[in-house]
């Protein structure tokens, strides 16, 4: 099971339902933390912890959709599975548009609930790995000098050394030297690898 250290955060203002769903998830092998409100969850959560959120859509104060928006704009987002006492179409649409992992009514079959939580955790693990790789790539890109960044941008656009030299007003041999420096710093061997790396690292680090 991928849940290992991952935590399922259950947020619901209905204490009875919160306890019930917490029990069910624990009995099914998940690590669970429970919160009576969105604010309580945001105050207690620790950055960098893998997991997902199972939140009631309708809550006093900050509701489920607000919580989702707050998480998505922060540095360490978590996938959110919404629960609702009933399916109401406009909220469902809004939640799914904002990137909700899933949307279930509270009486949804047991299997569907567990599957949704599992999918959310898998998505979190996947996105977490992507974020880590991007972070690593961006650190490496930060090692390049401003001139090397310029050359890299043109290489990735598929330009030949001669064209790059013409465009930047430098000698073709200097371009070759910059390219060697770039491949060494970024630890790649081919233009194909280079292109992929730049794509994965998006957004391109600032300072250009």
């Amino acid at each position, binding site marked *: 099971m991928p849940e290992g250290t991952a935590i399922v955060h259950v947020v619901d203002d*209905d204490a009875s339902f919160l306890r019930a769903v917490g029990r069910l998830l624990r009995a099914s092998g998940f690590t669970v933390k429970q919160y009576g409100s969105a604010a309580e969850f945001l105050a207690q959560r620790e950055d960098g912890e893998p997991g997902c959120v199972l939140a009631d859509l309708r809550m006093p104060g900050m509701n489920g959709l607000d919580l989702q928006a707050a998480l998505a704009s922060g540095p360490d987002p978590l996938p959110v599975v919404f629960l609702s006492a009933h399916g109401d179409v406009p909220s469902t649409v809004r939640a799914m548009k904002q990137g909700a992992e899933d949307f279930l009514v509270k009486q949804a079959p047991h299997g569907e609930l567990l599957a949704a939580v599992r999918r959310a955790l898998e998505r979190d693990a996947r996105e977490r790995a992507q974020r880590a790789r991007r972070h690593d790539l961006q650190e490496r890109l930060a090692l390049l000098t401003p001139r090397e960044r310029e050359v890299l941008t043109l290489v990735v656009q598929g330009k030949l050394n001669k064209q790059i030299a013409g465009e930047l007003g430098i000698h073709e041999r200097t371009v070759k030297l910059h390219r060697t420096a770039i491949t060494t710093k970024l630890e790649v061997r081919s233009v194909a690898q280079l292109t992929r790396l730049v794509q994965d690292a998006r957004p391109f680090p600032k300072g250009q």
Partner: protein
Amino acid sequence: MKAMRGMTRARWLWAAVAGFLALAAALPALAEEAPVPGGPKRVLVLHSFGEHFQPFADVATAFRSELALQSPDEIELLDIALGVVRFEEGEADKPLVDYVYSLRTQRPVDLIVTVGSPAFRFCMRHRDRLVADVPLVVAGIDCRHLQGVELGQNITAVCVNIDLHGLVDDILQLLPGTANVSVVLGSSPLETYWAGESRGAWQGYTDRIAFTWFNGLTLPQMRERVASLPPHSAIVFALLDVDAVGVPYERNAALHALHDSATAPIFGLFAPELGNGTVGGRLVDVRGAGVESARVAVRILGGESPGAIPPVIVPALPPAFDGRELRRWKIDEARLPPGSSIRFVEPTLWQAYRGRIIAVGALFAAAGSLIVMLLISRARLRSTRAQLGANEQRVRELRRELSLADRVTLLGQFTTSLAHELGQPLGAILRNAEAAELFLEREPPDLEEVRAILADVRKDGERAGGVIDRLRAMLKRHGVESQMLDWSGVVDDVVGIARGNASARGIALEIDTPSDLPPVRGDRVHFQQVLLNLVANAIDAVESAPGGDPRVLVRTRANGNGLVECAVSDTGPGIAPDKLESIFEPFVTTREQGMGMGLPISRTIVETHGGSLWAESNPGRGATFRFTIPVSEPRERHA
């Protein structure tokens, strides 16, 4: 409020009775009053029917205005409608004669005018008492009625010639293929007279045309007849003031009603009918008859002897036609008799004359362009007016739809909050039960946890029960406000909302409501919700089972036990026998998006109103949901 209104009415009645008694007491005092020299001339107008029956009403109106215009003296008009002669002549005369006679004696009159032949014949029957010493002008009458009547020194007449031959000749001129003519005539003695007269006059056409006389029919029966005429038919609108069951029709009401249903052109006799649905022809100059009568009246009031004034015959008007009718019945303008004028021409037709207008404009450039401009602005004004009318209609429709939409939204919100309140505890119970199963499967079972779960389940069960209790209480509270309902109105509203949805999915949505359904008692909004829910379910069911004859029928009957029974039947897949009862339990649904709350809520509503709701499988296919509603007590109906 009601009591107060009742009291006001009683008081008014007493005032009227008291006033009448005072008037009766004052009458003898007036008896000796003599005409004041230089005072107003008194003219007593005797109307044949009421004052608003055509064509007589237009004769009288033209008479009054022309008389006021022409008379050098002030005129005081006394109107008496001899309404009773529209039923029968002679038998009921006596009180009328007494009334006219006493009025005449109390307030001496200078002239009597009869409008229409029944009033004329009434005066002739009682000539000695009514017109022995007062001049009489006979107006609004066909010259035929004067034949063989000795008018004498005191009477003269202004008459018209209704050209029965000319009418049929005109029809054949315009529509040479005409083989059937339906003659619209009422059933009063005057109208019966004209039935006989026209039968005789048209004897010579019977080899070409089959005539059908409508006297003896009611207006609705006539409407049915004119709606299904064979090809090559024409309708003659002769006179319809009283139909076979004695219903009177004032103004052009009958003509308009027939025009709406007619499948053949209508030819009339009288000028005022043109523009109200008749095609036209050589029409009787009704206004002219009134004007001529006024001129004769002025002469008599000025001192001339009626006997010295020969009867005036008012000629028919030059042929005139309604352009809209000509277009509607595709009558070629080339076939119109020479000298015909076309009226009521719509803008599209005047465009056809634009060439002529421009030619005139070339000769009289300035004046011509002014005319064109005026015509254009008139056409614009007319089309703007028509558009305004259409817009207003649309706005009214939208407003009605909106008010319905409002109600439905309210119902939706109510259902939503209910679903939320029930969803919380029921969801918790479900999750707890699932958790409990898992804890019991453990080795050893976690009984401590299971015990905590059971305590929570119990609390949530009570919570859900509380929601249901509140719903019941709320419905009961609303029940107090229950009102008398016209059930067919409720059905029409709901079907109106659902119809668009049904027809978009190719499903026929039909209503079967008897017209004599007794009123029921209940909350309109609640019943709309129940019916809308059942109809929506039925539409979904039909759509889920494609096949021939996709249909939903809303049928209502009074079942005789003080209940009205409404049934919503569909041609969907039907309901398994073991599900007929369980579908009324919360969260049981056959639909993908269903909450399973509609039927339980509907049943609660119906039961709160003292009825019941159940489901049946149809013998063929599909299902029927039936519910009953108590009939409103007669005692309440009058309250």
